[in-house]
């Protein structure tokens, strides 16, 4: 993609850069680069940082102005992400609503839903959790069994969700429910918005490999939500969940890739300080990690081009990018541990992990969530390349 900036874009970049210089100070500067989707350390300060961004309209800048956005162009959004990464600002705490649910509501939500929820998401007033996977429906999401039955003006929801991202801090959940048990698997599903603060919703944290509880299991026992709290049409939830690949998803991916470049710089620093960089094999590992991070960055930029209609199908591109990034990030995690040497085995109080240990452990989940590498490759082979389908025994 052409990265030559027009005078207008240069001016925009300078405005963003100046804003970060002036605002990423004090307690925010002290937690530069901290946090991630699975890491809720420094939570309160990070939420304060999100509100700092919100106060000057620097969240969800691509959203229409009526919901608090700036209606920014794709180029402007790209520039903003690059500047965000350059500033090494903390990872935002309110990503679920802003980057994942928000674009879906913009594309499929009723006017009432958009007006009710989007301004509070962008103002960092309400937090969201995602309720998709179930104990019996992970990568095979269409097999989900949580059901919602209409009763007067309400939906009554019964079932169980698991690996519910950000569940522990959520005020609301966006949940895939089966609303027509007789329809074919993909056609009887709806996306419901369900308030957490009610007796029928029980959220229990589950500890993951890192020892944290970013994921939860959620039990719905006669939980209720208003009948109009459906995103898109009733029984059309599958298409809503798969959604069009929004610009935000593209910029989110790019932001994560840029963040990985920062991790590689940290690994190199660590290898120098432990003396591991004196070994040729370690140097080769570091060079490989750096090269992989570069490829991720370029993939992210290409994806932005694709979203602007200047490249291949963004969905295919996102799938390619996901497999490459998750598999290479996992290799990077191994190299990060080797860079630390024996110290990599030690943890802090309460299973506290340093950044490089976090890469090792968190990256292990990346080839699983959002569709395993095996599923991604199967889909690419069968649908994109038209190769024969896997034979079924039945």
């Amino acid at each position, binding site marked *: 993609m052409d990265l030559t900036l027009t005078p207008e874009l240069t001016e925009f970049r300078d405005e963003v850069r100046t804003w970060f210089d002036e605002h990423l100070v004090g307690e925010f500067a002290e937690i530069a680069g901290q946090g991630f989707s699975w890491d809720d350390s420094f939570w309160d300060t990070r939420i304060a940082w999100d509100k700092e961004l919100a106060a000057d309209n620097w969240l969800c800048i691509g959203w229409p102005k009526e919901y608090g956005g700036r209606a920014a162009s794709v180029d402007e959004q790209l520039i903003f992400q690059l500047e965000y990464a350059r500033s090494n600002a903390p990872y935002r705490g309110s990503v679920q609503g802003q980057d994942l649910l928000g674009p879906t509501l913009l594309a499929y939500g009723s006017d009432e839903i958009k007006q009710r929820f989007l301004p509070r998401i962008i103002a960092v007033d309400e937090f969201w959790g995602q309720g998709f996977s179930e104990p019996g429906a992970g990568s095979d999401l269409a*097999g989900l069994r949580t059901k919602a039955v209409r009763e007067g003006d309400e939906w009554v929801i019964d079932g169980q969700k698991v690996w519910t991202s950000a569940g522990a801090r959520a005020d609301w959940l966006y949940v895939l429910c089966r609303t027509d048990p007789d329809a074919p698997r993909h056609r009887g599903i709806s996306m419901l918005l369900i308030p957490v603060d009610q007796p029928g919703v029980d959220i229990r944290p589950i500890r993951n*490999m890192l020892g944290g509880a970013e*994921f939860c299991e959620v039990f719905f026992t006669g939980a209720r939500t208003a009948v109009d709290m459906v995103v898109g049409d009733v029984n059309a939830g599958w298409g809503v969940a798969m959604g069009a690949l929004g610009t935000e998803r593209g910029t989110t991916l790019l932001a994560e890739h840029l963040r990985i470049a920062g991790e590689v710089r940290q690994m190199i620093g660590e290898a120098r300080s432990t003396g591991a960089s004196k070994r040729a094999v370690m140097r080769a590992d570091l060079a490989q990690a750096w090269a992989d991070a570069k490829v991720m960055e370029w993939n992210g930029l290409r994806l932005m081009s694709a979203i602007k209609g200047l490249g291949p199908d963004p969905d295919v591109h996102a799938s390619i990018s996901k497999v490459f990034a998750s598999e290479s990030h996992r290799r990077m995690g191994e190299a990060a541990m*080797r860079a630390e040497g*024996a110290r990599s*085995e030690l943890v802090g109080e309460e299973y506290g992990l340093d950044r490089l240990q976090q890469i090792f452990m968190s990256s292990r989940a990346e080839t*699983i969530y959002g569709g395993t*590498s095996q599923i991604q490759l199967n889909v690419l082979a069968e649908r994109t390349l038209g190769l024969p389908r896997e034979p079924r*025994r*039945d």
Partner: protein
Amino acid sequence: MQHSELEEILDGVRRFVRQEVVPLEGQIDEDDEIPTAIIEQAKAMGLYGFAIPEEYGGLGLSTYEEAQLVFELGWTTPSFRSLFGTNNGIAGHTLLEGGTEAQKKTYLPKLASGEWVASFGLTEPDAGSDPATMTTKAVRDGDDWIIDGAKRYITNSPVADVVMVFARTSPDKPPAEGVSVFMVPTSSPGLSIGPKDKKMGQAGAWSADVVLEGVRVPHSAMIGEQEGAGYVTAMRSLAHGRVHIAALCVGMAQRLVEETLQFALERKAGDTYIADFQLIQALMADSQTDTMAARALVLDVAQKFDAGTDTKMGPAAAKYFASEAVGRVADRAVQVHGGAGYMRGVAVERFYRDARLFRIYEGTSQIQQLVIARQMIRSAGNTGGR
């Protein structure tokens, strides 16, 4: 040892591990402690001295026989093996390889019975897999030696009765000639044990720093009572220890393959058991192949180690391959389990964290690569290749 006798021991250990220890794995991981009843049973079964000769009170297994026993131990949490790993392994072998007959007769029975726990004190804050940079020193004072220094990540030191402390006795000489080893009681004035290390995995296996400040021991505490023999003794103990750890990795890999298979046979995606998906089968097959290759290599290396025909390259290659292989097998086990494999309380998640350490202790993978390559180059030189 008679074949039938070995089979009987292996059967007993297999039953004990699978019926008594496996059900407690989750608890051991949570509590970071192995229940006393398990420790006492391990002592009664002779597990503290299986690799110590019968004449010194052990079971007297050869390395080949020991490997088969350790395959069984590896089926459960590695912290179980760690209880008596140092007595049989690196610490016990320091006495066995380097001790005088009198030292062996006096002390090995205490290790073999579990009356004493012994630790191996080689690693230092700035000298891990490479003892050339070791700084702990021992200075002669009359009939005694005064030891000063610090040792790091010393397995079992929080419960040890004695530590085999490696120290420079001739600072001017290279390590191969200037290092001696002393058996130091942990009750010695000046010896202190740091707080237990908090580790990423292997909860229940305890390690800590050992600090020595002016610790006075008699000359009779020097293993072999011969100055400068420490380095060779350490290398011999480590070579044996590498075969031992390689066998442990095979045991864990076998367990992980079983966990993977059972999960794939029970878990459905849509209407299909995931074991019927070919990409899942590929993951399972790669793990099975890795495990079979590691097992065959360990048994071959153990036989040559017993015969004395390969005591360097083989142990390094077996430890390198088996520890990397179990890392790959654990990785695939998590992948096949999907989200469940990433959550605490699931066996493969725990093993994934446990397995990482195997690539570090008894010499990192990077050190094993160097050992292997140096042996290759040396042997080429012997036949005029260089």
